[in-house]
Every structure is written in C-alpha cells, then in structure tokens.
C-alpha cells in the first residue's frame, strides 16, 4: 500500500486490523515510507518488509482497504484474503496508456484556461501536455529513474512550447508551459506529506515532502533550462 501512495496511518491501521482479526490484538507495527516492521509479542521474531519502489496507484490502495474491511467483518477467510491480495498485486484494472495520455491532455488544456483566461491555446496546450506526460511515463517505465523523467519531460515541454509559438500555432509560451506541466505535478506525495505530519508520522511526512519538493525542483530545472537557451 505504501508503494502505491497511501498515507502511513491507513497502512498501519490496515495491518493492525488484519492482525487483530487473526487473533493477535496486541501486535505492534512501525512503518516509514521505506519499510514496515511488525512484531507479535509472544513470538521472538519481528518481520521486516522494505519498500523500495514507489509509484502511484490509488485503485490498489482502495482495493486493499476494502479487502481488509471484509476480512474484519468475517466475510472472507485468511486464505481467501491472501489469495485476493496476490490477485490485486498483479491484476488491478489499470487505465490503459492511451486513456492516461488523454487524461493528461484533459488536465493541461482546461487548467491553462482556468489559470490564465486564455482560450486560444487550449488545443496546443493539450497536445503538448499529452506528449510530455507520454514521455514521462515512457522514461519511468523503461529506465525507472525517479527525477530524471520529470526533468526530461518538462524540458521537452518547454522546447515544444517555444517551437509551437515560433511556428505561430500558439500565442503565449508562458501559458502553454503552465498548462502542459500540470500533469507532472506531485499532487499525491504533497497531500500525503501533509496528512502524515498531521497524524504524527514525523519520519514519513517530511520524507514524502522531500520527494515532492525534489520532483517540483526537477520540473523547475527543466523549464529553467529552456529559458537559458531560447
């Protein structure tokens, strides 16, 4: 769950619910963004699970949440629960790639209009936003380097925006870049950082905030690069 963008409190809560229902009401859980430690008092060993990969898939979070609630209500057995969890891990219905790119287009065009009251550049912004998101997605899938993908994507967005305006397709470089960068904004880590800190998870909250900040900085560098050269 932590891998896919849930808050700490929810992950701990879920583990506790499962443990209580399996007959260990006094289990202890300690979790941070990079790992979970769990122990059951009558047993000598604690279990450690590390979390090294983080992506965003809120559907998985919601699914696990529902499963654990079902289990707590004794609707399903432990074996069933485990089976289902494996299923969730492999085969969650993900929006297909083209639909996500379409989503990016839908985010960038309209948002640009809301922010800047500019009705001329909607089409260009949507297309550039979609291309930028596709590049970001592709780099993330193939190379799996966290901040480089945002950097390259925003760099290309900037270059494309400049080219579009030079060719006379768009009016304002500023507005196009503002809109097209929006799909890359780290909304999930930012919100989670705030919620984690409010819930007293002072290790995870700032760590997530750092992640969001670095992502934002990567986007900013990409854009700044464009300004230096054009």
């Amino acid at each position, binding site marked *: 769950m932590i891998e896919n963008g849930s808050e700490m409190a929810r992950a701990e809560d879920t583990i506790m619910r499962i443990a209580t229902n399996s007959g260990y009401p006094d289990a202890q859980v300690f979790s941070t963004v990079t790992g979970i430690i769990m122990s059951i008092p009558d047993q000598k060993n604690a279990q450690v699970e590390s979390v090294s990969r983080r992506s965003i898939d809120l559907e998985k979070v919601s699914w696990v949440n529902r499963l654990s609630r079902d289990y707590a209500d004794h609707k399903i057995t432990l074996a069933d629960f485990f089976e289902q969890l494996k299923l969730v891990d492999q085969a969650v*219905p993900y929006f297909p790639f083209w639909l996500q790119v379409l989503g990016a287009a839908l985010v960038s065009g*309209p948002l640009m209009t809301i922010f800047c009251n500019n009705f001329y550049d909607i089409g260009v912004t949507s297309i550039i936003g979609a291309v930028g998101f596709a590049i970001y997605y592709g780099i993330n899938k193939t190379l799996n380097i966290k901040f480089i993908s945002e950097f390259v994507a925003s760099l290309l967005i900037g270059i494309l925006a400049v080219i579009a305006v030079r060719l006379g397709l768009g009016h304002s470089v500023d507005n196009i870049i503002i809109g097209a960068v929006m799909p890359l904004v780290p909304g999930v880590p930012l*919100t989670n950082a705030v919620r984690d800190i409010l819930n007293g998870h002072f290790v995870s909250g700032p760590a997530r905030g750092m992640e969001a900040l670095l992502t934002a900085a990567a986007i900013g560098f990409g854009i700044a690069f464009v300004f230096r050269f054009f």
Partner: protein
Amino acid sequence: MVMMIEIFFAFIATVGFGIIINIPHRALVVAGLIGTVAWLVYWLFFNLQLGLALSNLTASVAIGLLSDVAARRMKMPMLIFNIPSLVPLVPGGQAYQMVRNIALGDAAQGMRFLTEVIEITGSIAIGFLLAELLNKLWKKIMQKKASF
C-alpha cells in the same frame, strides 16, 4: 458564459488528474464534482476581494468536508477524492513565474512569486487541517447524540 465554461473545465481537469493517478472508476465523477465545487468556492471568494489566502483556505476546507462525506458514502479512502479535486487550486502559474524569473536573473520578482506560492500551499494545508478538525467534531457530536 465564460464562467460556465470555466466551471466545466474545472470538472474536466479534475477527472483527467483522477485518470492519471488511477483512482477507481466509480469515484471519477464524484471526485470531479468535488473539484468543481471547490473551484467555485475559490472563485466566489476571490471575486469578493477576500484575498488569495482566504479563498484557497475556504476552498480546501470545502474539499476536506465533501471528500469525507463522499468517502463514507462510497466506502473508499478519503484521499481518492481530495487529491484530484485539489488540482484546480494548485499555484501552477505562480510557481512557473517564480522559476522563470529566477532563471532569468530577476531574483526579487522571483521571491515575490515564491512568497505567493508558499502562501497558497500553506493555506491549502491549513484548510485540510480545519476540515479534519470539523470532521472529528461532527463525529463526536453524532456519537453523543447516539448515546442519549
């Protein structure tokens, strides 16, 4: 007329961001509606000359309250609703101007936009805090009523 189009765009943008972060299909429309309402609140307060901070704060309180209601109705985690609906409030324009001005060497102007960004993000965070507080208060009151 422009107003109507912008409201519609707020809805579309929220749904689009929902698709990107892969929220459950059933939640898409609800999240979109919450985003629209939040943006409407923001717009209303901003046009009443109440300033950036207060309008963002009220809008994020609205997001917090509405998404708690939605989360309980649809039995889904609350953050599914409040992350996408936050998107129309994000200070994208100011953040961009900040980077641009600093990159071009106009640090003073950049700092001005930086303070604006901090102001907006801070008031959104405090708005969530207030919403959390109100939700907890509401739950307490309901429990008291039930125990009578």
